[in-house]
């Protein structure tokens, strides 16, 4: 996770700069990602189009599984956002459910009690989550390693406790019910399939955003922060600001996902944003592989798909998920997707 990649040229690393600024990768960088960046940039859009076509046709191929795909899409969004913070900037957050809850409960309450339009409620809560993250980020992200993990885990615990404790507002343990469906113009997004297509668009936009960050200058600055924060600071990177920005972005992703989840389920309860969920989001990222787009998708698919694999299997799911996590974390540091990619790359270079 902390492979140190020397930035090709440390010129003007502060300021956001143009994300896709063409910059010659160092020729000596070996077979690792930086050398392949130029090729990737040509190949990526070409790979994205068939992937989108397959995704668009998927509900027709597996009609019985659309509900699962919706949930996978929601968690894909959360994990994509977390990938910016944990995968790129190297800051562990076990508390993403705080922002899922803000988005979920906030949008639910605004539409249910105040009869706001659903899209407006989603946008307002995304903004609110960004503000909360900016406020928390400057203080919490000063902590490091285990201490940051603890503080963010605390956020997750507090979130679950507040959701069931503030009964008057949140409906307590039984949750907030009868939330309306998402409304886009005059279109009510009610069915699984409609929700799936909305999520497809949102996820594609999110993936595009994250891919640009990853390849752009911001991504390299974040990578530098993750690899060696003091060294990054010496290069003129404002580490605190970059960490906070990544935290804010991850919060917006989680908040939007939370809102969409609530509108899809048409209720939200403490179970939906519990500590277990907070942990499983982190697991999805680690399992699939950070620093990629397909990794989070694979992670969400595996972890959400496992319990659906059969009634008898759902009993085994926590045990299997735990064991898989141990094995992947120990032996496959790049996650399932990263490992698969490395294998393919090695085969190609030897043949």
């Amino acid at each position, binding site marked *: *996770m*902390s492979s140190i990649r020397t930035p090709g040229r440390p010129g003007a690393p502060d300021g956001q700069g143009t994300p896709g600024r063409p910059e010659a990768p160092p020729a000596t960088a070996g077979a690792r990602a930086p050398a392949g960046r130029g090729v990737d940039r040509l190949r990526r859009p070409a790979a994205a189009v068939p992937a989108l076509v397959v995704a668009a046709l998927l509900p027709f191929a597996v009609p019985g599984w659309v509900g699962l795909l919706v949930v996978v899409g929601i968690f894909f969004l959360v994990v994509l956002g977390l990938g910016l913070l*944990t995968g790129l900037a*190297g800051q*562990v957050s076990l508390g993403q459910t705080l922002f899922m809850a803000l988005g979920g409960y906030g949008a639910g309450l605004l539409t249910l009690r105040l009869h706001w339009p659903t899209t407006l409620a989603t946008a307002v809560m995304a903004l609110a989550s960004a503000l909360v993250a900016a406020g928390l980020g400057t*203080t*919490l992200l*000063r*902590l*490091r*390693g*285990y*201490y940051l*993990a*603890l*503080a963010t*885990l*605390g*956020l997750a*615990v*507090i979130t679950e*406790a*507040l959701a*069931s*404790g*503030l*009964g008057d507002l949140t409906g307590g343990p039984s949750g907030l019910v009868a939330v309306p469906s998402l409304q886009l113009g005059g279109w009510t997004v009610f069915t699984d399939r409609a929700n799936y297509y909305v999520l497809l668009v949102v996820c594609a936009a999110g993936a595009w955003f994250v891919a640009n960050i990853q390849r752009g200058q911001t991504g390299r600055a974040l990578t530098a922060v993750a690899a060696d924060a003091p060294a990054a600071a010496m290069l003129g990177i404002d580490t605190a600001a970059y960490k906070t920005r990544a935290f804010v972005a991850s919060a917006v992703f989680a908040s939007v996902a939370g809102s969409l989840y609530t509108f899809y389920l048409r209720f939200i309860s403490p179970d939906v944003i519990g*500590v*277990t969920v907070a*942990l499983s989001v*982190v*697991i999805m990222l*680690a399992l699939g592989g950070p620093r990629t787009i397909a990794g989070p998708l694979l992670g969400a698919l595996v972890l959400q798909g496992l319990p659906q694999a059969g009634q008898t299997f759902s*009993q*085994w*799911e*926590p*045990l*299997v*998920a*735990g*064991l*898989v*996590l*141990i094995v992947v*974390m*120990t*032996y496959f*540091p790049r996650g399932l997707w990263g490992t698969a990619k490395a294998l393919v790359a090695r085969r190609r270079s030897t043949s």
Partner: protein
Amino acid sequence: MTDTLQIVVSGLVDGCVYALIALGMTLVYSISRVINLAQGGFVVLAALTAVSLQQHTGLSPIAVAAIVVVVFAAGLALVDRVVVLPGARRATPDRMLLVTVGLLQAIGGFLLLVWGNLPYTMRPFPPAGTAVAGGVRINSQYFWIVGVLALSVVALWALLHRTRLGLVMRATAGNPEAAELLGVNTDRIRLIAFSLSGAMAALAGTTVIPVTFLQFSTVTPYAVAGFVAAVAGGLGSTAGAVGGGLALGLLQAVFSRYLSSQLAEVIAIGALIALLLVRPSGMFGKVSEVRR
């Protein structure tokens, strides 16, 4: 007044359990630099094992507890060899934390498979009964819980500061490389630390199960409470683990008297996060640990 005392007593008893979990985590951390979140899982696993053993053999709960302690002391050494050591050799601390999260999940899953989703409790240790002192009702089991914590602390202190093995352990905790150069088999020291933490998890689980209900889903709260106590106290500090555990239990109990139990949890954990922000190394920790 009695009301307040009653709250303090039950809060401190909860705190003793958290302290035992944190003590195991801290001990393992100081030797291996691994935070074992699964410690909370082992507590519940030990408790439910004790319940089943007690039901099937009809042995006295004390005998059952003794058996479980021995089994878990050996079991955690095995867990270190099979799961934690291979992970620690390859993974960074962040990923190591996730390895133990995986272990925690796997234990929860195992509990769900074997014991189902029902809560369990066990017969109290003899002599069973309730004492009343100054209007405060004290379950006899409370004495066992407090006693076990006291015994663990004293035994650990004696081991670390009064024996040659303890000296070696402290040397390993202080500087593993230097200890290794002097001929210390650090892997063996790790095994001892994990064994001790396993024994402490078993002690916590078997003594607390008679006064509470445990099930597969209680692994996470215990893991979180132990982690909070260990970090708030200052990682690697024995006094900190005990202080952190007792403080957490007390805060939760006091606030749940005046607010709901959920809001009490919020305030207790919020207070400890605030403590971390003011004193990033915890109550008794060294600042250098945080600035790694």
